[in-house]
C-alpha cells in the first residue's frame, strides 16, 4: 500500500519551539478524522531553511509550501487541500501566487534557474562520462567546434557579462581576447583549482561532483584562444577531486573528447594535472604559474599579464573553476539568457560556502544581487541557537566584515567593495554575538601573515605589525593610539603590496575598525570583552548568594583554584585561576560570574 500524499511538517528547532509539535499532532488527528490514514502520511523533517516564517508545512507531491501554520490550520489544510485539492492561499508565502504553487513544473524551473555552476552536482555520477553527456555534456564543445569561430566564442562570453569568480571579478571574455590576439604559437589554458581560503570548498565540490564540466570548458577556452595544452592546478589536499579528475580525463581521452583532432575536427587539446602543496599565495596567478614551471611559488609584478606573457613566457589564460563551470551553459543557452540573471554589473549566479554560526551550513548557488539576509536567514536557516547576528565575512580572510545594517544590500562585486568587503571566491562566514570582533580579526590576520611569501616589505612587515597590535588589544594592553597606527599600516599595505594577498590582508582590520570601533574601544579603554573571548580581560568570581555549595565547579577546575566546603559558598582564588571558564559552564545555579 502506498500513500498518495504526504504532509511534511518541519521538525527543526525553530519550528518545533513555535507550536510545531502541537501542529504535527493536529495534522495527524485531522488526517485520521477525515479517514485519510491510508492515503496520507504525516512526516516530520529537519529544518526546511525558512525558520523566520515557521512553522512550515509542505505538501507532496504537489510541493505546496505553507508558512506560519498554526495548529488551528490543520483542519483546513486537510479538508481543503488534501480532500478537495484546493490550495489554501492565505497560508502561502506569496499569497498572490497560488497558481504557480500547484504545479511541479514551477519547481523544476526554480531549481534549474539557480543551479548553473552546480547543475550536475548531486545529480550525476561524477565517475560516469555517459551521465554527463546525457545531460547535454560536451554539447557546448560540439557547438563551438562545428558551428562557431574562436572569435564567436569569445564574443558570446564577452556579451554574457561573465566575470571571474576567483576573486578579482575580471571580465572573462576580455581576458580570453587578450590571449587570443597574441600572435599564433604556443599558448596555454590554466584552471586555478588551488582554493586556499579556509572555509571555502565551492571549487572542490564542483570538481568532485562534475569534473567533466571543467574539462569541457577548458577545451572550449583552448579553442577560443588558440591553446593546445591545459593545466589544472589543484592542491594535493583534495585527493577525491584529483581522483575524479583523473578518471574524467582518461574517459574524455578514450572518447576522443581530449587529444588529437577532437570529434574529428582539426582542433587538438589535452589537459594535465599539476599538484600544489597548499600554499595560499600559490592561488595568486603569477605565483601559480611559477609553481607550475617548477619554481618557488612567489608572485611577480604585473604587467606583463599572463594573457600576454604567462607559462614559459607564452600567452596563458588562467580561470577559476567556478568561472569555467559557467562556460558550457552560456554557450548552450546564449549570452542573453545568462545576462538576464543577476544585477547590472554582475551577471549570473555565485556559489557560496556558508559556514560559521549558521543553522544550515553548506553550499548554495544564488543569483547575483541576492541579499545577505536572504542567504543567511532564508536559505541558511538563521543563526544557530537563536543567537543574535553580529557580522558576516565574505571573501574569506582577505575580505571584510559586514555588519547588520547592510543585511539588505544586494550582493554583487560593486556593492561589496563599497561596503569595504570583497566577493572573493565565495567563502561566507557568519558571526554571532559570541564572537569577539578584535579576536576574529586577529584570527584572519594570523592566517594571512602565516601565508605571506615574504617577498615584499609592506605585506611581510605590515602584516606582522598589525597582528602585534591586535594581540595587544586582545590582551588588554592596547592603547588608543594603536588604532591610528593600524589604520596607517593597513592603508600602506593595500597600496604598496606586490600581490593581492598583501593588498587585501588588511581588509578585516579596516572593515572591523569602520563598523565595530566600539568593541575595540571597550577592549582598550574599559578592558572588557563583551563576547567573553579574550581571556586576559575576563575575571571569574562566585556569587555567594546564589552558590549552593554543590562542588561542581571545584571538581572541574583544572588548577584547584576553587575552595569551599560542601553546601557552603565556594570562592575562586584569582591568583591561581587560569580563566579556562569551565566553572562558568558547569555551574547549574548561575552562581559563577564572568566579567
Amino acid at each position, binding site marked *: 500500500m*502506498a500513500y498518495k500524499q*504526504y504532509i*511534511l511538517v518541519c521538525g527543526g528547532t525553530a519550528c518545533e519551539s513555535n507550536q510545531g509539535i502541537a501542529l504535527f499532532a493536529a495534522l495527524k488527528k485531522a488526517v485520521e478524522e477525515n479517514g485519510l490514514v491510508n492515503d496520507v502520511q504525516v512526516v516530520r*523533517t529537519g529544518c526546511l531553511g525558512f525558520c523566520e516564517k515557521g512553522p512550515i508545512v509542505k505538501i507532496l507531491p504537489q510541493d505546496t509550501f505553507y508558512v506560519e501554520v498554526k495548529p488551528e490550520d490543520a483542519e483546513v489544510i486537510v479538508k481543503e487541500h488534501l480532500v478537495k485539492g484546493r490550495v489554501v492561499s492565505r497560508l502561502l508565502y506569496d499569497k498572490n501566487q497560488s497558481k504557480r504553487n500547484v504545479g511541479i513544473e514551477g519547481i523544476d524551473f526554480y531549481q534549474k534557474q539557480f543551479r548553473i555552476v552546480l547543475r550536475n*552536482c*548531486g545529480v550525476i555520477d561524477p565517475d560516469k562520462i555517459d551521465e554527463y553527456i546525457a545531460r547535454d555534456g560536451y554539447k557546448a564543445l560540439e557547438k563551438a567546434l562545428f558551428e562557431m569561430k574562436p572569435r564567436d566564442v569569445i564574443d558570446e562570453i564577452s556579451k554574457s557579462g561573465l566575470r571571474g569568480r576567483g576573486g578579482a571579478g575580471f571580465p572573462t571574455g576580455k581576458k580570453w581576447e587578450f590571449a587570443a590576439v597574441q600572435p599564433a604559437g604556443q599558448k596555454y589554458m590554466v584552471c586555478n583549482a588551488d582554493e586556499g581560503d579556509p572555509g571555502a570548498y565551492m571549487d572542490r565540490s564542483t570538481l568532485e*561532483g562534475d569534473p567533466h564540466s571543467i574539462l569541457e570548458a577548458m577545451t572550449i577556452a583552448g579553442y577560443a584562444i588558440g591553446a593546445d595544452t591545459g593545466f589544472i592546478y589543484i592542491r594535493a589536499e583534495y585527493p577525491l577531486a584529483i581522483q575524479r579528475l583523473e578518471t574524467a580525463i582518461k574517459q574524455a581521452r578514450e572518447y576522443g573528447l581530449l587529444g588529437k583532432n577532437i*570529434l574529428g575536427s582539426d582542433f587538438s587539446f589535452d589537459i594535465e594535472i599539476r599538484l600544489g602543496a597548499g600554499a595560499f599565495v600559490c592561488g595568486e596567478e603569477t605565483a601559480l604559474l611559477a609553481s607550475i614551471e617548477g619554481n618557488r611559488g612567489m608572485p611577480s609584478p604585473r604587467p606583463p599579464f599572463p594573457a600576454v606573457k604567462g607559462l614559459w613566457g607564452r600567452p596563458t589564460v588562467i580561470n577559476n573553476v567556478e568561472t569555467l563551470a559557467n562556460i558550457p551553459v552560456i554557450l548552450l543557452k546564449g549570452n542573453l539568457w545568462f545576462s538576464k*540573471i543577476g544585477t547590472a554589473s554582475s551577471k549570473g549566479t555565485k556559489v557560496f560556502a556558508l559556514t560559521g554560526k549558521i543553522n544550515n551550513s553548506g553550499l548554495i548557488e544564488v*543569483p547575483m544581487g541576492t541579499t545577505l539576509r536572504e542567504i543567511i536567514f532564508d536559505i541558511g536557516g538563521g543563526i544557530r541557537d537563536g543567537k543574535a547576528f553580529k557580522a558576516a565575512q565574505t571573501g574569506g580572510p582577505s575580505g571584510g566584515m559586514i555588519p547588520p545594517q547592510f543585511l539588505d544590500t544586494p550582493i554583487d562585486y560593486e556593492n561589496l567593495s563599497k561596503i569595504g568587503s570583497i566577493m572573493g571566491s565565495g567563502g561566507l562566514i557568519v558571526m554571532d554575538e559570541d564572537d569577539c570582533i578584535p579576536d576574529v580579526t586577529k584570527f584572519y590576520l594570523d592566517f594571512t601573515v602565516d601565508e605571506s611569501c615574504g617577498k615584499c616589505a609592506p605585506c611581510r612587515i605590515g602584516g606582522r605589525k598589525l597582528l602585534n597590535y591586535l594581540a595587544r588589544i586582545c590582551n588588554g594592553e592596547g592603547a588608543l593610539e594603536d588604532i591610528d597606527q593600524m589604520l596607517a599600516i593597513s592603508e600602506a599595505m593595500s597600496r604598496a603590496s606586490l600581490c593581492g594577498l598583501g593588498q587585501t590582508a588588511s581588509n578585516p582590520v579596516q572593515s572591523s575598525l569602520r563598523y565595530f570601533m566600539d568593541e575595540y574601544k571597550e577592549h582598550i579603554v574599559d578592558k572588557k570583552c563583551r563576547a567573553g573571548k579574550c581571556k586576559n580581560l575576563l575575571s571569574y568570581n562566585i556569587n555567594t548568594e546564589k552558590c549552593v555549595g554543590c562542588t561542581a565547579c571545584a571538581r572541574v577546575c583544572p588548577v584547584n583554584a576553587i575552595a569551599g566546603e560542601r553546601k557552603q559558598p565556594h570562592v575562586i582564588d584569582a591568583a591561581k585561576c587560569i580563566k579556562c571558564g569551565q566553572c562558568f559552564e558547569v555551574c547549574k545555579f548561575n552562581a559563577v560570574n564572568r566579567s
Partner: protein
Amino acid sequence: MAKLTLDDLRKLREEKQKLLEKRDPSNKDAQIIVGMGTCGIAAGAKDTFNAIIDELDARGITHVLVRQTGCMGSCHSEPTVEVVTPDMPSVIYGKVDSGTGKRIVDEHIVNKHMIDNHICDKPSMDIVSEPGK
C-alpha cells in the same frame, strides 16, 4: 571505446538521455542516490552506501539501483541520500548512517512510507525571487 565522431557523440547522448529519462537502467525502476563528496564521505557515506547495498541484497531486491553522486550542498546533514521511486515523490534524507540506510530500504522501498525525522528538504521556489525575469 573508439574515439567518437560528432555523429557518434550525438547518438550516444540521445541513447543515454532516454535511459536517464526512463530512469530504467537494466530493469531498475527505483534509485537510491548517495552523496559522496568529501563532506559526505567524511560523515560516513561509504558505510551508508555499503549498508544499503547489503540490505537490498539480503532481501533479494533487484529493482533498485544504488548510485553515487557529488555534494548536494546540504553539508550540515551529511550523509545525504536521495530516494527516487515511481510511486512516491522523490525525497532527500539527511544524516543517514548505516542504520538509517537500512531503514530506507525497509520503510521507504519495501513498505512505501517516508521516514520520520530524517527528511532534509529545501523550501519551495516561491520564497526567493526568480532570476531572469
